[in-house]
């Protein structure tokens, strides 16, 4: 049995790849794993709580879609790392950089054979 984290991953990639709003049943059918719809619903509501999935409540059954594309999430994540957002210190990520571009260019010159 896959862990909840793994299930979240597969559900998110399905939603990202399909790019449309899917109901829990459709998610369940399209996932390779043999899962109960209730499990999928649990995973979807966890993802909704994390702000990764949006639920459309006007239809029956409810349909779910990713709040942002895979690329948008990656960019957001890297912005935190590269310090283009104010929260940068909070992430405490240390990027190997910290070297200015001029210095890097000079370094490349020294190292080039």
């Amino acid at each position, binding site marked *: 049995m896959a862990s909840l*984290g793994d299930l*979240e*991953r597969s559900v*998110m990639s399905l939603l990202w790849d399909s790019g449309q709003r899917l109901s829990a049943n459709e998610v369940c059918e399209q996932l390779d794993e043999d899962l109960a719809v209730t499990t999928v619903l649990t995973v979807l509501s966890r993802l909704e709580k*994390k702000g*990764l999935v949006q639920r459309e409540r006007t239809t029956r059954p409810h349909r779910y879609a990713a709040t942002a594309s*895979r690329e948008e*999430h*990656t960019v*957001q*994540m*890297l912005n*935190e*790392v*590269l310090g283009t957002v104010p*929260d940068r*210190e*909070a*992430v*405490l*990520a*240390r*990027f*190997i*950089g*910290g*070297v*200015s*571009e*001029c*210095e*890097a*260019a*000079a*370094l*490349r*010159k*020294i*190292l080039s054979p």
Partner: protein
Amino acid sequence: MEPIALVLAVLAAVLAVPVPILLHEARFRLRSPWAAMLLWQAIALAGGLSIVGAPIVYGLSPFGSSLPEALLTAARLTLMEDYAALAELEVHPWHLFALCLGVLLGGHLLLTLARTYLRVLTARRRHRQLVELLSTPLQGRQAEQAAGISAAQIIEHEAPLAYCLPGRTSARSVTVLSRGLLEQLEPAELAAVVAHERTHLVQRHHLLTMAFEAWYRALPWLPTTRYGREAVLELTEMLADDGALAQHSREDLLRSLAVSSGSAEQESPRPGSDAEGNSLITGARLRRLLVPPAPLSLAARAAVLLVSAVLLGAPTVLLLTS
């Protein structure tokens, strides 16, 4: 107690302004970053104790000859509403003002520390969720080459970068590499990068920087809090470099730095870049990698250790015996 309050105030002033200015560019940090790190941590603690302690000791001075005694007397008289005894003590409004200042400052520092810690934890949790969803484990030949990587995750992005995300335990800590970095580095260079990031995690550098982050947030108008924060961040990078050099060659580390730091577009020379090259290398960290300085002598290291111990001990002893 008043002379002790004065000593604490002087100590606080010295640790708040001239010491960080002198220390953040002291040359010895290049030779023994550990010694400098120890000194910074001692300064932060001693500075905090003395800046909060000085007004409190002064404010309590009419109530007794030692801090515990004065605290008890002040609390007792206040609770018993013994105005006659209070009047006899000749408590000046300045004393009350100093007492309030000390308590507020201490509360402010502690609350900021707690808030910074919570903020960091929340941001890290959110970031980890994204890493878990968006990355794939490093596999295959490169993983073997960079042996010892338990949790390197790959993010699909062309910008070359590497960073680490500390967790509560080392099993929850992750090193994240971008696809761009993976494609531009040789396996040996990649291994050096991963060793650098792992040193950050293993030596728990995020804990060493936490107090300085909080200090900076608590007193942003004090320019030296920024010095401390930057100096400690720089020291963690030097320590991580040293950790990587313990297992990998200097050339591999330097090459990986050149690739991951510079922009990918090498063909467009920037205005201001100099044909001489060398003169442009100003970063202390780089200089240190290119021309490794000799570590501090044993005597010098012992002296730094002693100074740190005195820095930590002095305000503590002053507070307890005042």
